[in-house]
């Protein structure tokens, strides 16, 4: 493609794009506007300034795949993007070479060097977006910030704001057939959040509840949405024509057997814990009938009976969905079974 061809291609493309320019405008990086915003720093005045996160199609897919590639090990990466009003726009992400353990990831020297080289060189390919956050995975235990995560994120917000934290759970993504992802900002140290229980309810394994409960009021979740370009939409349409068969040929339940067992064990452990507390009774001597005070346990997130019930229902709905598709598939491909 020589330069004339290139230009012509753009002319043609412009006609297509102009009608849907609003969608693709996000892909333009306006450095003047970004510089103005960074100078004005509206987020420094209001701890709740940022409300939304918009994630591009490629960024989402890269994060989901990277998280999955780590298996039960936490992985970590950086996000490139920009800010717009009260929202973060995540354009792209890149993984970092980190040593992860099952409980935490730490970015060492190698990772910081990698980050610096990689992101400065991005200028050369017209990626002028700044680093606007980090993502890491919580394989199988939900999207929230642990104590260490809160520390990491606060120091980022202190020195590199605007900065965003994203957590992705690859195991739940597979078992629920839906990307499990959360985006968070921490509050300043002395700040008291206006309302408790801002964080949407989610299942957290018993052994993590302590960590979750202690820190759950020091950050808040942002509303996450996704966007794609007009060309992406066309290509995705084309892709759908290719692998529609996947929905019929995979079974989330069979793929994540371990996780199912883990979930059930967790529910039973939580029930046992509740029972213990019930036996102990409570200071008011209401032995037997009451579970311990709603406040103490609910505050820790997930200990209370109706939260256990929610966990169980979620697990149940995953099972029911999976068994429904198995029934449908069986009816379609092995009809003789239905007669027995």
């Amino acid at each position: 493609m020589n330069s004339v061809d290139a230009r012509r291609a753009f002319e043609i493309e412009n006609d297509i794009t102009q009608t849907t320019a609003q969608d693709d405008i996000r892909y333009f990086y306006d450095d003047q506007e970004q510089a103005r915003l960074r100078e004005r720093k509206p987020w420094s005045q209001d701890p709740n300034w940022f409300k939304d996160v918009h994630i591009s199609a490629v960024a989402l897919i890269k994060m989901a795949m990277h998280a999955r590639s780590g298996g039960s090990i936490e992985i970590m990466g950086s996000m490139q993007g920009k800010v717009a009003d009260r929202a973060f726009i995540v354009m792209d992400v890149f993984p970092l070479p980190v040593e992860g353990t099952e409980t935490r990831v730490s970015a060492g020297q190698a990772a910081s060097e990698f980050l610096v080289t990689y992101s400065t060189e991005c200028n050369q390919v017209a990626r002028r977006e700044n680093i606007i956050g980090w993502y890491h995975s919580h394989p199988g235990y939900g999207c929230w910030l642990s104590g260490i995560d809160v520390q990491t994120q606060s120091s980022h917000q202190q020195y590199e704001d605007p900065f965003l934290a994203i957590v992705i759970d690859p195991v739940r993504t597979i078992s629920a057939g839906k990307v499990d992802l959360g985006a968070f900002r921490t509050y300043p140290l002395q700040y008291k959040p206006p309302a408790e229980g801002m964080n949407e309810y989610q299942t957290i394994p018993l052994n993590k509840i302590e960590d979750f409960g202690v820190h759950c009021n020091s950050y808040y979740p942002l509303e996450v949405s996704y966007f794609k370009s007009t060309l992406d939409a066309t290509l995705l349409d084309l892709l759908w024509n290719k692998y529609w068969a996947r929905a019929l040929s995979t079974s989330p339940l069979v793929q994540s057997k371990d996780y199912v067992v883990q979930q059930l064990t967790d529910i039973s452990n939580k029930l046992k814990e509740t029972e213990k507390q019930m036996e102990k009774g409570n200071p008011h001597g209401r032995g037997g009938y009451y579970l311990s005070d709603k406040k103490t346990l609910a505050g820790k997130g997930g200990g209370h009976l109706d939260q256990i019930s929610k966990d169980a229902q979620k697990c149940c709905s995953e099972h029911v969905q999976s068994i429904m598709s198995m029934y449908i598939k069986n009816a379609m491909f092995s009809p003789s079974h239905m007669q027995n």
Partner: protein
Amino acid sequence: MTGKLHSAPQCEIDPLRDGANDEGAPIILHPLVVLNVSDHYTRFAAIRLFPRISSRRSSTDVEKGIIPFAEDGKETRVLGILLGTQRGRMVEVCHSFELPARVTHEGRTEIEEAFMVRRIEQYQQIFAKYIVVGWYFIGDKITPEDKRLHAEVFTRLNEAPLLLVMNPTSKLSGSQVKLRAKGGAGPIVEPMKAPSQSAGLLTTYQMELKVMADKPTMTLAPVPHRYASEDSERIAVDHVMRHAVPGGGDGASSTTLHLNNLKRSINMLESRIKVIVAFLEATARGEIELNHSLLRQIGGVCARLPALDCAEFSAAFAEEKHDSMVVAYLSGVTKSICSLNEVVDMFNRFSDRATPVGGSRRRGPFPRQ
């Protein structure tokens, strides 16, 4: 019409072979790569597009170098490296990244090689199993300059590099393909022909030795490709397919979502089956020539039904079903306990309040006698 059918092996995306596993195309593309290339293009296009539709910026800004591409007056090309794995003839393209490339006034493409080498190293640091399998560019045709790049630059990275060309100006978009495929009851040649036309949007090439005028010449010949995705990738792609609209949250419950997904797949399967039925009927009526290879494939697929019909499967299926029902039952019991607990709670609270101060403070689920 029949001619098209007979050229089926060349048909780049044969809808009838979609579900087939290992046979067929030696090139496997991951959706991530397709979207990554698309993203590269869109960002590039937005730089050109934005100054014109925004009143805040004049075209002189562009010349002043606010858009880095234009700073030395050279055109920039949208091209990059494809990463993946290779086993014999099978090439799996898993990832990609962009390269800085300029077109000189003489029409020569210059690639920033230092950048290229470093990026490859960086990616191999993270994805150790990936190697360079080829390169991509955006355009509508392959020029002699592209052939030169292919032979001079990219054969140094891989002895048989793959070339992926994306042509966004291709008139036939995916949705049109789908519409045609849906009208499966109509003339059957339509849905079979459509995919090969849409190859314009995305085509893969490899070097091929051809004897032209008694001279062996290397040419870039189109090679068929197919798509594959790992489970997390598929879920993420599904997710953006359905939810990636500005402001579009997931309002529907996950069960509805799941069933809708399944329904779409079944509809797709049905439309494919209709195509096959129409083809078979036309063959039976003698309207089209016998295509033995296709008939054999259809026979093969039909012979595989029912998919599984043995006692072991029945037993396993029943067990799976029972497990799920037990889980559902457990969840039901837990919920009942929870509700019951709430009722008891209410009663106790009520009886607490009803107790006169200083009276006997017996607390229980029932009011005082």
